């Protein structure tokens, strides 16, 4: 099998790449926010609305509903693979029942935060670089006095400190570890398997925020032995408004094992239509897993599109996706360091080696008025990157001071930018980015 990505044919799958603005093609370097969508996924969504725009979940007994259901849950008679099954296979879950459809990563993390039965005084351990979606749900529980939130600071070289992690587990009453698997700020991917093994040795459950991992490399939840994994389908070529919470089957069923459920099992947070099999004026019986977690009419076109997205990625091969991103990132890193590494005002965030940052390259600039560079890149060369705090305010405020985005003297200005790559990006795009950035720096008198 060829290890290189067939870029030309892949790029033809993405209608957005054929758009032109001021005669220029888009250079989309913001895939950590959300990715472009291939026509195969668009077609799957289109077909839903055109041909069987009905509800799923075995509510209705007509053929429209059957078509929807078959595409999500599969149909062994006709050999149709459902999207839930496809996603389960994509991350090597034991069963499709371990796949809960959510709105996005944020929703999936909140399902665990609000559904986990904590005891007062329980500690939830995070990293120091959580996305707000992996931080704020826990801070709310802390503010309510239910848990304590603590964080593990990265070790030297910005990498996960396994020794310190072990010490924390020995000395604190940690009930759950909830950590960002791949940082959306630095691109660093933690050694999750080793971390989870240590956590389990101490009887502690682990949830990973896989928003920036699952789209970029092969994930095997069984090999990792992770308890919960949250990710967003819209960050992996799928439709917006669809995410996934993977949970080990026994941790999704808090009623079993004598009503107490296994330790660390979660209960559904939102109840209503679709989550129960029966109710009377005084009580209700919950439906099976995962249905009990999917309340109300769902985003069926999105869930069907999720299957198409996963299939698309599988056809490319996740090893190829990862290798391609690192190839581009290595080129960008080397060029940027060569050009600006000695200036004193340019710094790449996180580990310096591109191989440790996957498809993410974030940099901090300390120059007067170093704001508005993403807008300028967009206006000049149709290049799309992001500037700001990337929803990791907590870490950046700690690093740079709480006022770093507030008005200050031009000579004190500081800004961070993020380039995030995916398999559809090219070396030529990287070169255009480097040249345009250099022109902007020159024009501003930075060089």
């Amino acid at each position, binding site marked *: 099998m060829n290890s290189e990505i067939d870029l030309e044919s892949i790029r033809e799958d993405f209608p957005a790449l054929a758009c032109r603005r001021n005669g220029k093609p888009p250079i989309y370097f913001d895939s950590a926010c959300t990715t472009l969508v291939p026509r195969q996924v668009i077609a799957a969504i289109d077909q839903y609305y055109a041909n069987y725009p009905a509800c799923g979940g075995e509510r209705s007994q007509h053929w429209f509903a059957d078509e929807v259901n078959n595409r999500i849950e599969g149909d062994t008679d006709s050999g149709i693979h459902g999207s839930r099954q496809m996603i389960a296979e994509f991350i090597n879950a034991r069963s499709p029942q371990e796949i809960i459809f959510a709105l996005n990563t944020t929703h999936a993390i909140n399902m665990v935060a609000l559904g986990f039965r904590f005891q007062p005084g329980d500690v939830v351990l995070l990293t120091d670089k959580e996305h*707000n979606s992996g931080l704020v749900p826990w801070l709310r529980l802390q503010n309510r006095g239910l848990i304590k939130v603590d964080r593990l600071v990265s070790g030297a070289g910005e990498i996960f400190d396994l020794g310190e992690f072990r010490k924390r587990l020995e000395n604190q009453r940690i009930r759950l570890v909830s950590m960002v698997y791949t940082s959306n700020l630095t691109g660093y991917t933690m050694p999750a398997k080793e971390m989870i093994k240590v956590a389990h040795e101490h009887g502690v459950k682990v949830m990973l925020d896989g928003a920036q991992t699952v789209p970029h490399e092969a994930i095997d939840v069984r090999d990792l032995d992770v308890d919960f994994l949250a990710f967003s389908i819209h960050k992996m070529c799928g439709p917006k408004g669809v995410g996934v919470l993977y949970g080990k089957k026994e941790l999704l069923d808090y009623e079993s094992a004598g009503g107490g459920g296994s330790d660390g099992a979660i209960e559904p947070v939102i109840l209503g239509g679709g989550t129960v099999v029966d109710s009377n004026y005084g009580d209700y019986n919950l439906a099976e897993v995962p249905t009990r977690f999917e309340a109300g009419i769902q985003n069926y076109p999105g869930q069907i599109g999720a299957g198409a997205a996963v299939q698309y990625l599988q056809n490319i091969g996740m090893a190829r996706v990862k290798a391609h991103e690192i190839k581009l990132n290595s080129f960008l890193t080397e060029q940027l360091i060569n050009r600006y590494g000695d200036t004193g005002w340019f710094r790449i965030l996180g580990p310096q080696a591109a191989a440790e940052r996957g498809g993410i390259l974030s940099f901090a600039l300390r120059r*007067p*008025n170093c*704001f*508005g*560079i*993403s*807008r*300028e890149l967009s206006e000049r060369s149709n290049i799309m990157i*992001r*500037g*700001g*705090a*990337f*929803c*990791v*305010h907590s870490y*950046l405020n700690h690093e740079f001071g709480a006022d770093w*985005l*507030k*008005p*200050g*003297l*031009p*000579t004190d*200005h500081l*800004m961070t930018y993020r380039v995030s790559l995916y398999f559809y990006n090219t070396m030529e795009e990287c070169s255009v980015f480097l040249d345009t950035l250099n022109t902007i720096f020159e*024009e*501003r*008198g*930075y060089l």
Partner: protein
Amino acid sequence: MDQAIVKNYRRLVRDGFKNAGSYENPSILLSTIASGIRICGGAGGYVRIYLNISDGVIEGARYLCSCDPTSNVAVEIFCDLLSGKTLEEATALNEGMFLQELDGPSNDLRKKARSLIKILNDGIKQYRAGTS
């Protein structure tokens, strides 16, 4: 960036931002907050302008900002134009006065000037209401 802005801005970077700074108790505090700064920490676009007024005359104008070069050029010119003016004269400020400070045309500067003039007039109105 417009070429006229580039020239002016590079001069600022080279020679310094002479109006940058703040006053502890300004007579008027003007501020522009661009939308998007807070959601996920969007990128900049925020200027705070401090005016010191004595006997109806703007004795000093200073600013702090987290904004792009064009905005910074606009606010430097704004402070220059305001210093020494009476409030009456300040309310007569117009876009053309900003553009005269550049060596060439700039549509972007015109837009920034327009919004600065608007917040200035609002600020002066409030100041007069508070001191009359």
